C-alpha cells in the first residue's frame, strides 16, 4: 500500500483525495491492511466462504406487477431532470 496504489483505488472508487490528506489516508490504509493481515494465520483449507449468515437461496415471488409507475415522483427528486429523463453532462459529442 503506497501513494500510487491509493490513488489507483481512489480513482476506481471515483473519489479524489486532496494533497493534505493523501499522506494521512495512505498511512491509515496501510495500518488497516496490516491489521486485517492477521487473517493470514487462519487455516482455511477446504472451508467454503460464507457470504451471508442465512445461506438460503433467495426466495423468489410470483412475477406480478406490484408497483405503479411513479416516474414523476422519482424524477422530481433528481438534481437535474426533464419530464422524461435524468440529465447529466453530454457524454457523446
Amino acid at each position, binding site marked *: 500500500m503506497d501513494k500510487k496504489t491509493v490513488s489507483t483505488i481512489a480513482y476506481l*472508487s471515483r473519489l*479524489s483525495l486532496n494533497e493534505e490528506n493523501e499522506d494521512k489516508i495512505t498511512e491509515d490504509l496501510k*495500518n488497516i491492511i496490516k491489521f486485517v493481515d492477521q487473517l493470514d494465520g487462519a487455516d482455511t483449507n477446504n472451508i467454503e466462504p*460464507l457470504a451471508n*449468515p*442465512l445461506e438460503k437461496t433467495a426466495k423468489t415471488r410470483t412475477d406480478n406487477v406490484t408497483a405503479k409507475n411513479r416516474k414523476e415522483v422519482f424524477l422530481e427528486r433528481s438534481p437535474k431532470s426533464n419530464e422524461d429523463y435524468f440529465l*447529466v453532462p453530454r457524454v457523446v459529442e
Partner: protein
Amino acid sequence: MSIQYKSIKELKNMLNDKDISHTELVQETFLNIKNNSALNAFITLNEEESLKKAVNLDNTPSSGSLAGIPIAQKDLFCTKDLKTTCGSNMLSNFIPPYSATVIENLENAGCISVGKTNMDEFAMGSSNETSFYGNVGNPWGENLVPGGSSGGSAAAVAAGIVPAASGTDTGGSIRQPASLCGISGLKPTYGRISRWGMIAFASSLDQAGPMARTAEDCALLLNEMCSHDEKDTTSIDEVIPDFTENLNSSIQGLKIGLVKEFDLSKLDNDVVQVFEESKKHYESLGAEFIEISLPNISLSVPTYYVVAPAECSSNLSRFDGVKFGKRCDNPKDLEELYIKTRSEGFGDEVKRRILIGSYVLSAGFYDAYYKKAQQVRRLIKNDFDSAFKSVDIIMSPTTRGAAFDAGSKGDDPIQMYLEDLFTIPANLAGLPAMSIPNGMIDNKPIGLQLIGNFLDESRLLQAAHNFQISTDWHLKTPSGNKS
C-alpha cells in the same frame, strides 16, 4: 404528570387511564426534545404530522398495540415525505418517496414517528463523531460520546425524551450506544426485520432493532417490527412468536456460556467487577455458567474490516449525483460529476471504508482478502454453532468500558474499530444479541451483552427481563434513580 423517562408500558397505562391525552403526550415530547436540543440527538423533527396523528387518536381511538407511543427513528430508515440523510451531506436534500417496511410496521401499530435521529455518517462509527450534522452528546455527562452509530437514538431514549427509538446494528451500532447510554437495545437475528427501505451499509450484516428503557419494551417493539417481507429477499419466513410471552418465566437452569477467549484481564478492574456481579446475580436467579471456546473469535474484528468495507464500497457506489441526493456544481463532464459529487458528499471515515473495500475487492487481492475473510467468517459461525450445543445463551460485557470523551480516541481508526470487539461476532454469525444496563463506573452506565442462538430472541428477552425485575440498573437516569 411528567412523561420524562417513562417506559412504553407506563405510557400505555397513562393513555388508557386517561391520565394524559395523545395530544398532550406528543406536545410534551416536543417540549422535551427542545429542552434537550443541546444533545443534538435529532436531525429532522416531524412535529406537525405527529400532532395531527395525536389529535386523530384522541378523536378516534385505535386498537394498535403501540397507539400514540412517540418513537424516534434513526435517520437511516427511509420515511415517506420526511427528509432522510443517513448522517451524510450526500443526502442532505433527500426526501424519500416511500417508507421502510419496519417504519410502516411501527406506524401501523400506532407509533408516532416524532423525528429522525442523528447518527454516524452512513452508520460508520462508534462515537457519533462522523455525522455531517455534528456530534451527539451523551446525557450522562458533558463531552461524553453516546456511542455509535445509533447514537442519537440512544441519547434520545437515555435523556427520557422518547420511550423508544429504532436503531440499526452492523457491528454493534445498537448495542454499543445502548451500553454507553444506559438503555436496553436488541439486534435481532439477521433477516428477522425487513431491510427494505434501510439505507444499506453492509447488506450481509445490517439488521434493524429496538432501543428502549427496558427489555420488556424491546419485546413490545420487536413484536411489531418483525414481518416477512417479499420486498427483501433475505427476510426470514418463519413464525414470529409473541416476544412478551415468556418474559416472566423463570430462568432456573438456564445455561449461560462464558467465552474462554474473551480475555477480560485486559479490561479495567471496574469493568470486570461489574461483569462478575452480574454473573453472581444470574447465579442467584438459578442460571448455570459453562465455559465455552470460540477458537476463531479473535479474528472477528479483522474479518469484519474486510467484509463490511467490501460491501460498503459496493453499496455506496449508488451515490453518484445522478438520480437523487447531492450533485456538485458545474461538472465539466460525467466523470467529474461522479468524482466531485462523491468527494464533496462523503466524509473522511466513509471515504476510508470505501477505499479499503475497493482495495480488498480489486483484481489480484480478492482471494487474499475478501474470500479469506468470508472463509474465516464461516469458521466463526461454526464456532458459535458448536457452542450453542451446550449453552442457551452467551454472556460478555458489551463494551470495553463506559462512555469516553469526544476526541479521546485520537485519529487512529483501529482504536475506534476495537470499540466493537465484543459486538462484531454476533453480526458475522447473524445471531441475535442485546445489551442491558448492568452497572455504573464513575457515574457512567455500562452494559451487559447477551448473545442468543439463531431466532431465539425470546430467550434473550426472558433472560434480560428476569435481570431487570430483580435489579435497578435500568431505572437509573442522568437525573437520579427513577421513582
